[in-house]
């Protein structure tokens, strides 16, 4: 079956549309950042409860518990009186739509634009796949397009679920930047049809890796935000910066950012693990061994180990917080290194089954 050039053009059009819409969404997020309704109080309330949780129980992964810091004997935060006399019930979660509306016009616009952009983005990926009659992540350009789509969709879920409006400008901004770079630097026209003899395990493996990379992309952006906020907080504590920086005030608190990043990686880590296993199954079918320390395999392993180290660091005294995020970013860097450098330049197994 030949490449459907028409659909290829449709895919490109969708992608350009997505890029434009995303850019507008980033502007809207930035507008909310600058002009939107102050929401610090609401965030603080939820944060105190979570800080108490953090104080009493170890948030964390397999392993030892940290020494629990002393529970602050502060008076209980007053819950809003919801029901008649003496009832004090935790608020049931406000439904998402209402929360978006209550967050202000900028957020409404930004979320709407992001959703529209993500739809166009997904349409671009799907039509590309239809055009080339195979999974649309067969070369670097397609891979980047697909992973940014995963990142955008994943982040939208996070955004709406956790009401993390102020993070939108960073993550969507990173998506726009990456997509833009891909379009300008590594664009390849629809082509490269699938060799007839490829095993379906290869498709499963690459799909899983694409998903995981998109999720880790979001975690990496959140990690950068965390590090900036953490740096600012430390400078304030050391008296080297004035408190009350507008940007930081509008961002979620350190603990919340940390938790969000952690949960993102918790989502992505099993997907990456599955991708590694699927890759081993494919390698065994194609080359007769399920693990041969091929450079690509080795770096996928290094990435896995680094994210595992992040999960362990979260449960180790002295390694939580900043250091853990360094580890997480190192893991993402190894992932990118694997894709950009190892797969392109360092010779590995010459695959017979139709890759080369």
């Amino acid at each position, binding site marked *: 079956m*030949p490449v459907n050039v028409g659909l290829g053009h449709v895919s490109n059009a969708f992608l350009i549309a997505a890029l434009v819409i995303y850019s507008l969404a980033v502007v809207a997020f930035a507008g909310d950042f600058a002009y939107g309704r102050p929401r610090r109080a609401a965030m603080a309330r939820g944060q105190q*409860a*979570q800080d*108490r*949780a953090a104080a*009493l*129980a170890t*948030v964390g*992964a397999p392993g*030892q518990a940290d*020494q*629990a810091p002393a529970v602050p004997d502060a008076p209980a935060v007053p819950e809003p009186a919801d*029901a008649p*006399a*003496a*009832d*004090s*019930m*935790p608020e*049931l*979660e406000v439904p998402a739509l209402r929360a978006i509306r209550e967050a202000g016009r900028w957020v409404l616009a930004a979320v709407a634009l992001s959703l529209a952009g993500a739809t166009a983005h997904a349409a671009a990926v799907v039509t590309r796949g239809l055009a080339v009659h195979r999974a649309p992540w067969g070369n670097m350009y397609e891979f980047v397009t697909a992973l940014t789509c995963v990142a955008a969709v994943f982040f939208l879920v996070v955004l709406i679920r956790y009401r993390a409006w102020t993070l939108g400008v960073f993550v969507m901004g990173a998506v726009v930047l990456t997509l833009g770079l891909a379009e300008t630097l590594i664009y390849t026209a629809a082509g490269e*049809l699938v*060799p*007839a*003899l490829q*095993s379906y395990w290869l498709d499963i493996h690459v799909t899983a890796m694409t998903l995981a990379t998109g999720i880790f992309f979001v975690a990496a952006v959140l990690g950068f935000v965390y590090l900036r906020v953490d740096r600012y907080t430390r400078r304030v504590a050391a008296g080297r910066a004035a408190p009350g920086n507008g940007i930081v005030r509008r961002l979620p608190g350190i603990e919340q950012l940390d938790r969000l990043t952690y*949960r993102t990686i*918790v989502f992505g*880590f*099993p997907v990456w*693990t*599955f991708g590694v*296993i699927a890759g*081993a*199954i494919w390698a*065994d*079918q194609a080359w*007769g061994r*399920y693990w*041969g*320390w091929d*450079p690509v395999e*080795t*770096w996928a*392993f*290094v990435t896995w*180990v680094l994210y*595992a180290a992040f999960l*362990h*660091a979260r449960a*180790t*005294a002295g*390694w939580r917080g900043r250091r853990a995020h360094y580890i997480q970013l190192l893991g993402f860097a*190894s992932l990118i290194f694997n894709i950009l450098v190892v797969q392109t330049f*360092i*010779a590995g*197994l010459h695959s*017979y*089954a*139709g890759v080369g």
Partner: protein
Amino acid sequence: MTDVRAPQTDPFDPAAEPGDSPRPGPASPAGGAFGLSGWLRWAWRQLTSMRIALVLLFLLALGSVPGSMLPQQGNNPSGVRQYYASHPALAPWLNHLGLFNVFGAPWFAAIYLLLFASLAGCVVPRTFRLAGSARTLPPRAPRHLARLPRSAEYVTTLPPAEAVETAARVLAGRGFRLRRADSAVPDSAGTEPADAGAWVSAEKGYLREAGNLLFHLALLGVLVSVALGGLFGYKADRLLVQGTTFADTASALDEFHPGRLVTAGDLGPFTITLNRFDASYIASGPQRGQPSAFDAQISYTEQRGGPARTGHLAVNRPLSVDGAKVYLIGHGYAPRFTVTDARGQVVYDAPTPFIAGPSGNFLSEGVVKVPDAQPDQLGFTGVFVPTAVDVGGTLESVFPAADNPVVSLIAYAGDLGTDSGVSQSVYQLDTSGMQRLTARPQVLQPGQSLKLPGGRGTITFTGYVPWVSLAITHDPGQLPALICGIAALGGLLLSFMIRRRRVFVRARAGENGTTVEVGGLARTDASGGFEAEFASLAAELRAACQQGRHPLPEGE
């Protein structure tokens, strides 16, 4: 600052580390006469601490990096030789450090073995504890539920005991394990005064720890599986020309990489004959030249003298024979030559495997060595072009099928270097002791002959047959590794998705009715959501109380 010093007062987990037993053991080696067992215990505590696990994880990642940058002896022995040639001073030092065989080096093994010892030392005791605590009830409800991270309060008209019972039923319905105020189970806090008021404790999510332990134990299982394969498995390669048979014995294999405990006698005794190999390629369109099908028809016997079976080998579909797996890895062309020497004797008559080069479309290179030609040894370097087209004076192959096969040869005579005893590659000709006979490469069509100058003989290109390259592997750890990998994934998902949480309900009589306090605590909330769960649970508890007397289910 070590983890050991910190008293591990995790209020939640009875499965505390072996390091923090209630016995007041010495916490620091700086405390004077310590004794060997004390030192060993300190070392063990350090090894099984989270911090050391973290360090070992880093070292594992770091140690893998040179294994991906430098050529490795197992994957790429010719690359290692090239590295020696291009870095003659550096290479021996790297070899001393084991950097050309990183993943088999003792220091790498030390890292992952220490890591797994650390892991085992942590996980195995916790497994015992988990098994022991399978029936443990949740702890007594604390007095001040409002201090818990999540708390709620409501008023109901039901008397306290009934309110608590209603709550208990709701919680039981949601799958919580309960502990009621009247249960006679003593707890370690012992001296607590008798509780006034009714309460119930509920706990859920015990599977989380099981999932966590499953994950780590499964990783241990993967390591053992890999070790099994490394010890008892083997990998071998063989190039098989169509029409020939090979027996699975070490001398018949082109490459043989046995595991540490494998000897040549552990191979076989199967034989495989390549009866026919067909390859078809796409003839037109944008995918022209891409392979569309490969089919290797083979017959094989699993035992000597056993019945011959037929089968097919295909890409990505190995054949299981006698405990080993045979994979079709590659294929190529073996042009057939007949060489007569100066004395008119036929000194060579065989298909000669040529190896496809990087230029594509199976343009292949090879060598014919005729060491027993008289009076001088003869050698030929050749290029086989399956579908030959003359492009500006050079022959190029434009299609991978042999639609127009030609061979281009350069002839040499002299000393091949085969008689000195040092093995040479069969695909390379060392012409240093030889004289070139033909000024230009001679092109032969099938059936044509090249007459060598000086009456040295002739070489005839009589045709071609295909060859396949087979990989024969045996890995007893393969299936266990897969099972352990899937188990690890399952354990991971369990430990991330399940929250370990406790909910407490206390009711006391008050002026406006019974005040019911609900408190909740989540130990690990990796995927989030306890806040929402608690809120909806509290609402459900209140609703159940407000419905009035909770109807008793039948049979209670």
